[in-house]
């Protein structure tokens, strides 16, 4: 047990949350980060879906890594990912229909999410299943974390609410503010502002961790 959660393995979990974040440092999976972050609930569900798919795709590919001919490895990876995505999509349709409608094609598009292929190519093909699993969970969580931060910012400033799974829409900015002249920021709901928000997070992170800054 202690070996399973050795320092090295724990790093696989925690690094993607900070200095090796898939969105802000590896700059992968940005497109879906812009698309599903208007409200908080779809962002949470999307983060979870990607985490599950990445983790299990990593395990499966890692288990098969010595038998996959390297020439056709991309196709094998895609088959595995597609199978997992279809599973997740069906589960969402069965148990969380509204969210699945809001996410629309973006669940299906997890197949093309760069984080998945990135992790499979960079990690699962060269490591054992257990570390690969942790790496998948870590990267999915890092992705989900940024999604949740962006979605929370966008929903509070853009709609004045927060939508949580199971709790529905919670009003964050009281209605009395609107009577006093406050207005929702319509720009926050548009995709460009999501990109600028990602940029601001990257700026914030780099100004704190100096070693991430390129020297030029």
């Amino acid at each position: 047990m202690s070996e399973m959660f050795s320092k090295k393995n724990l790093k696989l979990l925690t690094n993607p949350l900070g200095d090796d974040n898939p969105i802000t440092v590896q700059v992968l999976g940005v497109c879906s980060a812009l698309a599903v972050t208007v409200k908080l609930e779809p962002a949470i569900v999307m983060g979870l879906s990607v985490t599950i798919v990445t983790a299990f795709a990593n395990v499966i590919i890692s288990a098969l890594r010595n038998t996959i001919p390297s020439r056709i490895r991309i196709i094998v990876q895609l088959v595995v990912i597609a199978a997992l995505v279809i599973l997740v999509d069906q589960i969402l349709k069965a148990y969380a229909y509204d969210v699945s409608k809001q996410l629309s094609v973006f669940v299906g598009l997890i197949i093309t999410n760069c984080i998945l292929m990135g992790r499979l190519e960079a990690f699962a093909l060269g490591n054992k299943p257990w570390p690969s699993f942790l790496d998948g969970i870590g990267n999915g969580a890092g992705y989900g974390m940024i999604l949740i931060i962006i979605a929370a910012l966008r929903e509070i400033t853009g709609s004045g609410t927060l939508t949580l799974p199971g709790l529905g829409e919670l009003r964050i900015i009281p209605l009395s503010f609107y009577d006093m002249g406050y207005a929702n920021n319509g720009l926050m709901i548009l995709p460009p502002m999501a990109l600028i928000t990602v940029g601001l997070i990257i700026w914030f992170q780099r100004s704190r961790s100096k070693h991430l800054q390129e020297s030029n």
Partner: protein
Amino acid sequence: MKVIRNILDGMKPHVQKGGKFHKFHAMYDAAETLFFVPNKVTYKGAHIRDAVDLKRNMFMVVIALVPALLFGMWNTGYQYHLSIGQSASLFDNFLHGFLAVLPIIIVSYVVGLGIEIIFAQMRGHEVNEGYFVTGVLIPLIIPVDTPLWMVALAVIFAVIIGKEVFGGTGMNIFNPALVARAFLFFAYPSQMSGDKIWIDGLTQGQGIVDGFSGATPLAKLAAGEPGSVLSAYDMFMGWIPGSIGETSTLAILIGALFLLFTGVASWRVMLSVFVGGAAMGLLMNAFAVNTYMEIPFYYHFLMGGFAFGAVFMATDPVTASQTATGKIIYGFLIGVMAVLIRVLNPAYPEGMMLAILLLNTFAPLIDYYVIGANVSKRLKRVKA
């Protein structure tokens, strides 16, 4: 001048390295270079220094904006009194407008310069002079009824996202004043369009007399109201609803002459914007199917922000093309795009802002091809 010099010299020891108030040296530098030409000497590289530095250059633009600003203040009061059905004297009109516009200008300068000073302090350079112009441009291109907190938010967005992230004055891709306006336009559409916001007090539910409309000429035309075309003379003089500084083509023209006379703005850009607008206007006339497309091409210069944008926004030396040929292409396309967006896109009554921002993006590309063409032309001469 001597008095100011003495005050500044008295403060100097405290803000120099090791002084008690060294933290505030950026503010001190800003004040000193504002009043006096810096006495810095270059030790290597280029040695030519002109007394007309960036700060003085920028001030020429601020002076050129004064006619539009004063007229805008008067017009704000005039439209206000018109809307409540009173007639007021010239001075009353001006005073009302002055009191309505002044808070916006103060907010714009305090917030904008505040951010500039913070960044100057953090990055260790002197306070940039670019904001002197932006700070007065922003109030002039927004409706008078814009809430002050929105102005503050737009200024914060424009200075940080529009300018500082690119490296400050001289590095920005987009004109910061237009970034501020675009921010307001997309973030708070209900505050940036309609027929109420252009008149002071209307959104707070002030009474309107019968027959008064606060809609701008552009909005009326876009809505296709019958008999909606105002007389060219009214629009040229500027007693029409609109953003604070944009209504009077005459006041803008005075500013334009000043800018051209002092050589601060590029005549190539200015002229080609108007040529582009005229060309597109004539093209619209040729294929006219509605009132908007039929209006004479020079009406486009008089309505909305076309003249203001052409004179003060398109000529921004940082965001425009740098080559002489490039400037002509850049200006021409701004004129074409502005009229195109105005007439054919009902979602955007005014196209000048979007046209300039779009061409700001393409300015470096235009320069790239102009320089490339020049290089290949000269290479051919060598071979021949």
